């Protein structure tokens, strides 16, 4: 699946790091029960080189305007930026504007944990305040779905990411977000994710025929027509 997605995204014009990262992110989501393939099905802004703007907001967060790009393609870049700050002993909040597929930050959180850092990512989807966390040196995050606090539409960033060497900053931020709603509507622990993954690698990933055809069609665009000349000299 990862291989097909890479070729499919390559066929859609994404650059190498983008299609590699997106393929891995989508397969991670799908194999951990989070419907990653839906990202392939949705309409997306055509991929062009994004002029990413870095500014600061009133709270001194670094604002990243992703120009409607999917976190599936940009998650690793965002995480790299966050890690750079944390490793320099800063605790920056990255406020990512104009992005979609926020849940695709989860596989990138694995990358943060692998680097020995703590992180918290939070965003509002249609129904919940989603708060995802990775603990330093762990390989799998957890996520809590909370009752959202009503805010003015567009006032908040689409995705927030805080990365830190020390755990206290993350603990206090998580407490401030979860407030009295400790349990939340739903909680998926890292163990739950691991169990889900074990189940999926046994059973495989189901892909509907229409999506498979679409992915294959894009993947085929990177293939070159075969000719008699091109066959020569490489086997009998």
């Amino acid at each position, binding site marked *: *699946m990862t291989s097909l997605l890479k070729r499919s995204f390559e066929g859609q014009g994404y*650059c190498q*790091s983008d299609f590699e990262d997106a393929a891995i992110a989508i397969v991670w989501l799908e194999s951990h029960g989070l419907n990653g393939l839906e990202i392939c099905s949705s309409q997306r802004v055509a991929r062009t080189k994004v002029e990413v703007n870095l500014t600061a907001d009133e709270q001194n967060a670094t604002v990243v305007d992703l120009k409607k790009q999917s976190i599936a393609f940009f998650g690793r870049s965002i995480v*790299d930026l966050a890690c*750079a700050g944390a*490793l320099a002993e800063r605790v920056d909040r990255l406020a990512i504007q104009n992005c979609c597929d926020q849940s695709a930050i989860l596989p990138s959180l694995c990358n943060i944990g*692998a680097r020995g850092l703590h992180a918290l990512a939070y965003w509002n989807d249609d129904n919940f305040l989603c708060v995802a966390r990775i603990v330093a040196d762990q390989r799998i995050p957890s996520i809590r779905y909370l009752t959202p606090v009503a805010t003015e539409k567009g006032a908040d960033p689409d995705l927030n990411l805080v990365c830190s060497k020390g755990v206290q900053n993350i603990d206090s931020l998580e407490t401030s977000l979860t407030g009295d709603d400790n349990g939340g509507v739903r909680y998926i622990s890292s163990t739950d994710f691991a169990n889900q993954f074990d189940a999926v690698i*046994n059973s495989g990933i189901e892909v509907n025929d229409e999506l498979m055809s679409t992915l294959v069609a894009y993947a085929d665009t990177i293939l*070159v027509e075969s000719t008699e000349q091109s066959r020569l000299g490489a086997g009998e």
Partner: protein
Amino acid sequence: MRPAENVLNLERLGCLHPYRLSFMRILIRKIMNDGWQIKRQTFDLDENGYGTAIYSIDASEGRFSFVIFAHYLDPDVRSDRVIANQWDMTVTLCAGDVGAEQLEMLRQNVPLQEAGRIDTRSIVLSRANKSSRNFEYVVSELAAGRQPDLKTLAKVGYLYRTTGVYGSGKFGMADWQLVRKKYPDFARPFAAEMFSCFMMRQFSLEQAEAIAHARSPATAIKMDDSVKRYMGIGNATGLGMAPYLINHPQLISRWIEVRETAIARICQSGRATKDMCASMANLLRKAARHLAEIATDNEEQNQRNSATIEEIAEAIRFIENHQPTDWQTILSMAETTWSFETQEVINSLLTELYPQLVDDLEDELCLDESLQLIPQEPLSDTRHAIEEHYAWALDIDFTEARSRGVFWYRSQEKSEPRLGHRGVDSGEDRAMKMVIAYDVRQCYDAICEFLELNPDASTAEYALVNPETRSILRRIQTMSRNFYGDIQANLSDTDVLPIHLLRCKLSFFGVSKFDPKSRLWVRNTMYQGAPLCGDIGSDFTDDWYFPTMPDPDEEHELSSCRSMN
């Protein structure tokens, strides 16, 4: 350990020979030492050998089935290319026992290979074609009550050639994550694939015997075990293998590092006593005999083998006359005096002399690969890393046409990788990312330009505004932190020899008897000299490397013809 610029030279990598930690060697040791039970459960073949066979395998920790479908194949359509769609034999290695329903599903899909769809109970999917001359010759001789002539067999040391061995989640099969977690018997790189080749070899021998018996029950005999052991399974490898070496740089680097660690340990701790020197001389003689028995139409390979045989003779004289007391003396002599081929023969043989110094490295061959950006690294440090670890790439003049003479692409025919000539063949716009040297060059020039305006930039800041460079940046940063990094070659050079890449990987598999058919593909042999399934449980001496023709006078089993009745 030897430095990277020495070891990662593409021409040297193309001269590697199998050694003690090649995957087939590790697998056979495991099978023999753990006493795997391999039994023929089904052998439903007609008089021409077509039909279904199933072997059950009770391995160290799990039970598996090896399912074979043997088909009639019109000789006119027989092809070793990955673009073929019919074969003499198609196979799958499955977890557990295979029931009737699963067998029927496999029967519908396994013969289709890439066009079929199997499920996660299958671990490996493969196919093989007969070496038609050899196969018919062997069957005829056995049917007539004669053992096949070893000199004739030596020209083609196998009955079948594999042309593709798939695993790791392709076509619906079990993913590598699943194999590694659930089937510890195959939790090493390519272990399941190598085992499947071993089983195809076993079947090929039994099928030939069965056909001979069907053809002439009154006179047919079984092949002597010494002859059977001399038969391997052939392989045809082309450009399809090449992308793996570029797409898995950390794993390839690790395999090379393990080999070099083994050699370094022996140089440091292995005593070159008189007895050890005598043993080395004998192993070199064996290697020379092995090379002399290689039959290839490739004149360059013949010359190379002949030169290596002569140099091996010199090496033997050196050892016997000088009686060196340390192995570094021999290796230094080899480095200054003899070819890469001879140097690597000596290196491979050294590992055979000291299993106690080498065998624990078996567990180091696996690696969880992840190319990571080091975002906090100052971009100026990244530039320095390129200058230090990729100097070989910066030395290539890409303004010369020949440096960018060829490009790699995937054909519409089964996505087969091919080489095109720039300005001549179509597909440049869809070129595969295979030329790391060029990407490094581009990245370096861009970084230098960026640093002029942003001298204090971090790598993360640069990568965020130049996302198209992230892939090569994280590769550079990760690989420059390995002892051995990327293979040092310009794969877009007009005169590039991709078979060096193929032979490198094949040597790690344990493949030998390289027979280059062009610069793009090579035939070779696997498991020649290896134990048979019937040898499991008997005393095992792990000495089947550099196999040579058995001497009939020394083999008690070859004393008389036996009837199968």
